[in-house]
C-alpha cells in the first residue's frame, strides 16, 4: 500500500487539484475554506502555477472564466455567501461551455449565517443558483481521500463535457484531517482544446468564448445544445455508493458528512436488527434518480438525512415518484446531526411502521 499521509480536507481540495493538473487558482478568503487559498499560495509557485487572491468572489469566478477559456485547468473555491456572488459568473461559464472547477465548502446560512458546516446550498448547486437553464456537474465527497479523487474526476469531467463542475462539501469535510494516499494520475493528460482562445497562431481559426444569442433562434439553439449535453451526462455521469440496500426496508439517502454520520447510525441500528441501508449520491447532479426509482419499485422506504431544512429530499421524491414513502431527518444549518439523533430517527421510523401495521 502506498504511504498514507495525514491531510486536512481543505488541503486535499488544493493538492487534489494540483495533482489533477490545475495550475491556476483564483479565490478570495472565506471561512471555512481558507486553507485552500492559503495552501495554493504556498504550493502554486512550487509547481510553476499561478495563485491570485482576487479582489472578490465575483472577480475570482471571472478570472476562472478567462483562464479556463484560454485552455487552462483553472479553479476557484469559496463558501456559501461567496458562492452566491459567483452565480452570474457560473451561468456565463455554463453557457459559454468553459471547463472549470468550483469548490464550495459550505457553511450555515442564509445571510452571513455561521461558520458551521451546512448542506443548505444543495438547491443552489443542483437547480441552478444562477439564471437560465443550465447545470453544473456536482460532486459530493464524503472523506478526505474522496476529495482528492473527486478533484481529479472534476477536472476530467469539466474538460470532457466543457462544463463547470462543482465539488460541494460542508465545512466539516474541509476542516477534518484523515489519512490519504496521494498518487500521480497515470492518465493525467489535458486534452487538446482547439476551441480555446489561445491566439490565432499558425492559421488557427478564430475562437470566441461567449454566451450571447441576440436572435431568438441562436439562443434557443445554444440551449438545445446544452440540454442535449445534459442528457448525455445524465446517461453517463451518475455516481453513487450503496451499502446494505439489498435487504434493507429503509434506505437512508445522504451525501457528504450526513452520509458519514448516517453510516455510523445505520451500523448501530443494524446491530439491533433493523434492516436499514445507505444510499449515498456522489454526483448530486446528475442525481442517481434511476437507481432510486428501481429501489422504490422494489418497495423500499427512504429517509433523506440532510444538514438543511430539506433540499435533496425533493430529488429523492421526484425519483421515487410516489411509489413509496420518503421521510426526512435534518438539522437546520448550524448544527451537525449526531449519530444518536440519526439512529433515533431510524428507530422511530421503524416504530411508526410497526404501529401502522
Amino acid at each position, binding site marked *: 500500500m502506498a504511504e498514507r499521509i495525514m491531510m486536512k480536507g481543505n488541503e486535499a481540495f488544493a493538492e487534489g487539484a494540483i495533482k489533477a493538473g490545475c495550475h*491556476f487558482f*483564483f479565490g478570495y478568503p472565506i471561512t471555512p475554506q481558507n486553507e485552500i487559498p492559503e495552501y495554493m499560495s504556498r504550493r502554486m509557485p512550487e509547481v510553476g502555477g*499561478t495563485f*491570485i487572491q*482576487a*479582489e*472578490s468572489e*465575483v*472577480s*475570482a469566478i*471571472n*478570472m*476562472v*472564466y*478567462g*483562464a*479556463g*477559456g*484560454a*485552455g*487552462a485547468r*483553472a479553479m476557484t473555491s469559496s463558501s456559501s455567501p461567496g458562492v452566491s456572488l459567483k452565480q*452570474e*459568473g457560473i451561468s*456565463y461559464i455554463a453557457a*459559454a461551455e468553459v471547463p472549470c472547477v468550483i469548490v464550495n465548502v459550505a457553511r450555515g446560512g442564509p445571510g452571513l449565517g455561521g461558520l458551521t458546516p451546512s448542506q443548505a446550498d444543495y438547491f443552489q448547486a443542483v437547480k441552478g443558483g444562477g439564471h437560465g437553464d443550465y447545470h453544473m456537474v456536482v460532486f459530493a465527497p464524503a472523506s478526505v481521500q474522496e476529495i482528492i479523487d473527486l478533484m481529479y474526476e472534476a477536472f476530467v469531467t469539466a474538460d470532457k463535457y466543457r462544463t463547470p463542475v462543482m465539488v460541494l462539501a460542508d465545512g466539516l469535510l474541509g476542516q477534518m484531517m484523515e489519512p490519504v494516499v496521494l498518487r500521480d494520475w497515470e492518465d493525467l493528460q489535458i486534452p487538446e482544446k482547439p476551441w480555446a*482562445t*489561445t*491566439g*490565432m*497562431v*499558425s492559421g488557427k481559426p*478564430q*475562437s*470566441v*468564448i*461567449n*454566451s*450571447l444569442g441576440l436572435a431568438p433562434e441562436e439562443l434557443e439553439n445554444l440551449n438545445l445544445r446544452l440540454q442535449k449535453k445534459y442528457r448525455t451526462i445524465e446517461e453517463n455521469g451518475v455516481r453513487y455508493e450503496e451499502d446494505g440496500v439489498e435487504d434493507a426496508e429503509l434506505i437512508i439517502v445522504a451525501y457528504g458528512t450526513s452520509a458519514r454520520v448516517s453510516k455510523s447510525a445505520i451500523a448501530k441500528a443494524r446491530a439491533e436488527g433493523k434492516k436499514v441501508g445507505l444510499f449515498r449520491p456522489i454526483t448530486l447532479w446528475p442525481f442517481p434518480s434511476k437507481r432510486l426509482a428501481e429501489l422504490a419499485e422494489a418497495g423500499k422506504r427512504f429517509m433523506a438525512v440532510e444538514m438543511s431544512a430539506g433540499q435533496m429530499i425533493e430529488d429523492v421524491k421526484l425519483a421515487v415518484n410516489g411509489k413509496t414513502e420518503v421521510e426526512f431527518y435534518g438539522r437546520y444549518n448550524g448544527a451537525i446531526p449526531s449519530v444518536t439523533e440519526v439512529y433515533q430517527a431510524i428507530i422511530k421510523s421503524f416504530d411508526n411502521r410497526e404501529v401502522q401495521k
Partner: protein
Amino acid sequence: MKQVFGYPESLQTRPNHYCPGCTHGIIHRLVAEAIDELQVREKAIAVAPVGCAVLAYNYFNCDAQQAAHGRAPAVATGIKRALPDRIVFTYQGDGDLASIGMAEIVHAANRGENITVIFVNNAIYGMTGGQMAPTTLPGQKTTTSPYGRDTATTGYPIQVCEMLSTLKAPAFIARVSVHDPKNVLKAKEAIKKAFEYQVNGKGFTLVEVLSTCPTNWGMTPVEALKWLENNMIPAFPLGTFRSLEEVSK
C-alpha cells in the same frame, strides 16, 4: 498610386452594427491598426464587454472572450496569467468599466496586470438606451436623469485616469479623444504605445478614449463630435497621466 489608408488586417471585413456616426467604429479601427503595426494579431486575445461593443469579437480579427458586465479586467487577468506571452486587451464602456466594474479595473490596475484596457467613455449607457453613466456630465439629460444629472444626489463625472494614477503599478495611462483627425492620430499613438508597453512586459496600460453616442445624446453625428469637444474635454482633460518612461526620466 499607393494606398495610404486602407482596411486593417486585424479588423474583420464584416460591417459593424454601431449606429451611424458612432465613434466606436473609429476606435475599433485604431485598435486594429495598432495591432497590425505591432504585428501581434496572431497573439492577440480581445475581451469584449457588455455594452454596445459586446459583439467586438465579430469585428476584431483575433481570438476573443466576451465578459460579464464590468468583469472584463478579471477575465483578461485570467487569460493573461494563463498565456503570459499573448497580447490581451479589454474594450470597455464607461458603464462597464467605471460603474459596475469599478472594483475589477482598480484591482487589475493595482496588480499591474500586463494587459491593455481600451476605455471608451461616451458619458452615457449606449446599449441599454441612454441611461446615466458615472461619466455623465453635470446637468446632462439621460433617460435616468430626465431632469439633468443632479450633482447633489448623483455626484460628478468620475475621472478614471486621474483615479487610477494614484496607484503605483500602472505603466501607462492616457486620455485621448477622437473628435477630429488630429486627435484621432494622437489617440492612435496612445493606443499603440499602450500595446507596445504590453509587448515589452511593462505592466498595466489604459487608454481612455472620449467617444460619442449620437443616438442617445440625440444629436447628429457631426453635432456629437462638437459636443464632445466643447463639453467632455473640459470635464475630462486630455493627456498622459502615467508613463513609465516619463517616470524614469
